[in-house]
């Protein structure tokens, strides 16, 4: 195709600019965690300090919020891994009436605005007079976590050949042995990747949570309260850095897991 260097360079600059734009907030967060400014967001920073890290560590309310978030995300992820894998297996192995509808149903919680899921659950909770609890948060989170596991596992199923399963069965393994020794190792990394993304999704979720948590405070709910009514600016800066740091790990790993095996899958064919 004919293309000239000038327009190629413009394209490259535009791409680079967009990429920088995407990452600008991360740099700002890293910078502000060390500011000495307590009452405004002034830039350039008036001075550098690390004292807010120890202040944040002392905060009991933060630890409790963090603990609740981790617990919710763990249970929701576990539920999503089971439900997502089952759904992916069903959709992969059989061609049944309404198969497209299943995908549609699973995508709906992330395709519809989060507030719809939130207020819908809130309506149901209100209609049935269910008290807010740990479980109301988990049930809400699981609805939108299922799809990430489902997508990852289904993609892996589609890439792996059915003959492996047939071979295992021909050689005398029963369905459970086949699942344990052939299917599970095959989908393992995809399942893990989906699970990590589900965890990250749940750990960070605030919109649905505000409708299903009642008076409970997850870490995102804590941050949200600081967004609308900033009271602890320096501590919030540190928390922001912390959240970025601990969500990046799983995401990077999940990317690695799916990317590597995708390459391996291609070279096998």
């Amino acid at each position, binding site marked *: *195709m004919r293309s000239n260097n000038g327009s*190629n360079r413009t*394209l*490259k600059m535009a*791409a680079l600019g*967009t*990429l920088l*734009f*995407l990452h600008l*907030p*991360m740099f*700002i*967060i890293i910078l*502000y965690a060390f500011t000495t400014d307590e009452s*405004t*967001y002034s*830039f*350039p920073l008036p001075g550098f300090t690390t004292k807010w890290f120890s202040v944040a560590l002392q905060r009991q309310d933060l630890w409790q919020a963090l603990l609740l978030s981790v617990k919710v995300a763990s249970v929701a992820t576990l539920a999503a891994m089971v*439900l997502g894998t*089952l*759904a992916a297996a*069903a959709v992969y*192995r059989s061609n049944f009436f309404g198969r497209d509808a*299943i995908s549609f*149903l*699973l995508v709906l919680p992330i*395709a*519809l*605005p*989060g*507030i*719809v899921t939130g*207020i*819908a659950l*809130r309506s*149901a909770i*209100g*209609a049935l007079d269910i008290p807010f609890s740990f479980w109301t948060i988990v*049930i809400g989170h699981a*609805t939108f976590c*299922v799809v990430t596991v489902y997508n990852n596992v289904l993609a892996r199923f589609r890439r792996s050949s059915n003959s492996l399963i047939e071979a295992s069965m021909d050689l005398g393994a*029963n*369905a459970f042995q086949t699942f344990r020794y052939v299917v599970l190792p095959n989908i393992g990394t995809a399942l893990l990747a989906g699970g990590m*993304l589900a965890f990250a999704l749940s750990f*960070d979720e605030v*919109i649905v949570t*505000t409708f299903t948590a009642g008076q409970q405070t997850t870490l*995102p709910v804590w*941050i*949200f309260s*600081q*967004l609308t009514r900033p009271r602890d600016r320096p501590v*919030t800066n540190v928390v*922001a850095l912390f*959240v970025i740091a601990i*969500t*990046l790990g799983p*995401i*990077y790993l999940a*990317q690695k897991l799916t990317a590597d095996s995708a390459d391996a899958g291609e070279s096998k064919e």
Partner: protein
Amino acid sequence: MMLNRFSTYLYLRPKVVLALLLGPPLLYMLVVYLGSLVALLVNSFFELDGYTGLISRQFTLATYAKLFQQANLDILTRTTFMALMVTITDALIAFPLSYYMAKVASKKTKTLLYLGVMLPLWSSYLVRVYAWKLILAKEGVLSWFINLLGLNGPLDWLLSQPGIGGSSLALSPMGVYIVFCYIWLPYMILPIQAALERVPKSFEEASSDLGAKAGETFRNITFPLAMPGIIAGSIFTFSLTLGDFIVPLSLGNSKYFIGQAVYSHQGTSGNIPLAAAFTMGPVVIMIVYLLIARKMGAFDAL
């Protein structure tokens, strides 16, 4: 062995296996998710009794009548307009990077760029909104930068405009617009990239061989084939903007968006019926949008 016999039983009855596999997730989604959506729909036909402060569970259209009051209609149109602007802006910003990723970058650069788009997408949404509060603050980075360029005048002029202005970028519809565009941008980049990735190089070569200039090939071949990707991306940017209340609550002024209206009605006043009725707006808009998108092949690009 029991297990073996059970395994054989299952092998001979694929329908049972299907039911066992599909049962739990389907049941969960039908009961919890669709059940809740039905509860939402039903609630929108109830009404909050103004005197007792309780929800009277009797069919009425009074709540929907309230939704069509001018102030509430303004909220609906304001939000839809914002969603539209954000979607168009994101498509424009996303396209060059997506194109570069799909058509120009080497395999190694592509992997890196992909990671560069994925990391912000998955890293904390709230923290990124918070970062923008720091950036857009009156005393923050952007003001400092604009000051450096000597552009205070134009900024102050923009901020003095009614409708889009405010006391600072961090407290104005303009700020909300900037942050929405930023926050949903990756959702637009990835589907466009995926769609462009699927445009065979031979198409473009054929077009070029037949005498089309680079611009003509782009306009007649590449761009139309990237359209499902743009539509897929727009589903996200549009839908996410329609339902968000974090960004306008953090950066906006007293002019409400749908999300804020839902949030405040269910919260302080406990008016779940009106909150539910408000939500039906984006639900109807999105369902229509999704159906059109499916017709146009956008789901293959997700």
